[in-house]
């Protein structure tokens, strides 16, 4: 019974939440706090804050943790499955069709037409990350980190892993 509830609690945000994991956070809150009462609002914000402090996708981190809390390892598995599987199956089906016809001019046109929109979506995301950085650490630190990481990534072609680890070190020392 609890596993079925865990499945439903994360299946609905996964299938309704457009715009990636972060968009589904309020939907998850609606299920686990309001409907099932597994967590209080303050416990939920605790989990969310921890999720934000750690790397990796937010939605699955929440599903895994809350599922684990309610139903152990199996509960965690059910939570992750419900979050990931439905949209992933749809994705694989649709892309298999596109891939089969990948040499057709229609499919090539599709790729060409959506590219500017994807550029805009990525550009908007860039802007919101910059705005978050500005709010969190101020204009000076943001500029320092932007310029430094741009030079490292684009001019000197350093692998992003090293740049991110470097930024983590910088943050631990200078932004604490």
């Amino acid at each position, binding site marked *: 019974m609890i596993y079925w509830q865990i499945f439903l609690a994360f299946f609905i945000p996964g299938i309704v939440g457009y715009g990636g994991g972060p968009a589904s956070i309020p939907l998850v809150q609606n299920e686990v706090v309001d409907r099932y009462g597994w967590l209080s609002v303050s416990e939920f914000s605790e989990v969310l804050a921890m999720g934000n402090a750690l790397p990796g*996708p937010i939605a699955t981190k929440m599903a*895994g943790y809350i599922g684990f809390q309610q139903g152990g390892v199996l509960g965690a598995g059910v939570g992750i499955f419900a979050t990931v599987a439905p949209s992933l199956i749809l994705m694989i089906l649709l892309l298999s069709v596109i891939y089969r016809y990948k040499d057709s001019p229609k499919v090539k046109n599709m790729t060409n037409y959506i590219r500017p929109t994807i550029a805009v979506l990525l550009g908007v995301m860039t802007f919101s990350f910059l705005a978050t950085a500005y709010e969190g650490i101020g204009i000076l630190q943001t500029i320092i980190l932007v310029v430094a990481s741009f030079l490292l990534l684009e001019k000197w072609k350093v692998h992003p892993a090293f740049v991110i680890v470097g930024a983590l070190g*910088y943050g631990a020392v200078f932004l604490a």
Partner: protein
Amino acid sequence: MKQVQLFLAFFRVGMLGYGGGPSSIPLVHKEVVENYKWMNDDEFADVLALGNTLPGPIATKMAGYIGYRVAGLLGMINAVFATTIPTIILMIVLLTSLSSFKNLPWVSGMTKAVVPVVAVMLATLTWDFFKKSKDTLGILNSSLLVIASLILLEFLNFHPAILIGALLLFALLKKDRAVKHEQNVERGVGL
């Protein structure tokens, strides 16, 4: 071997992506297109577009599909596992043992410092997409589409899924007419 590479690629993506799934997009691009060359830029663009059109978390959709493409069902499970499980274990351990972890000043400093780096990576990817679209559609058409998308998405609050869906449909229908037109020209009809 493929499975080990898949695991490593998406483990790195999962452990380095701060700020939720969307921040992992440039990292996935780096691993999948540049590092292991499992896909070219066009295929990656399709994956990203469809990932944005469908509901649910974007990081696991990309991981799952790419894993499936590279190494079948096991590859899919492997890539989703590598993206999600390590950070979930971290989360469970930290929340059950030391829940004050996230309040430590150096931890929040670390998380904040990564945000501008991700912004730079996203900006680069944005520029790549724009350049590529300039090369295929021409500067005028791509600028028009960029401006139209920006207005629709940001000022009129259109949902990206609707816009992308409409563009895909337009591509399907428009080509039909163009093909017919070419056939007409060949037959000496029209013009």
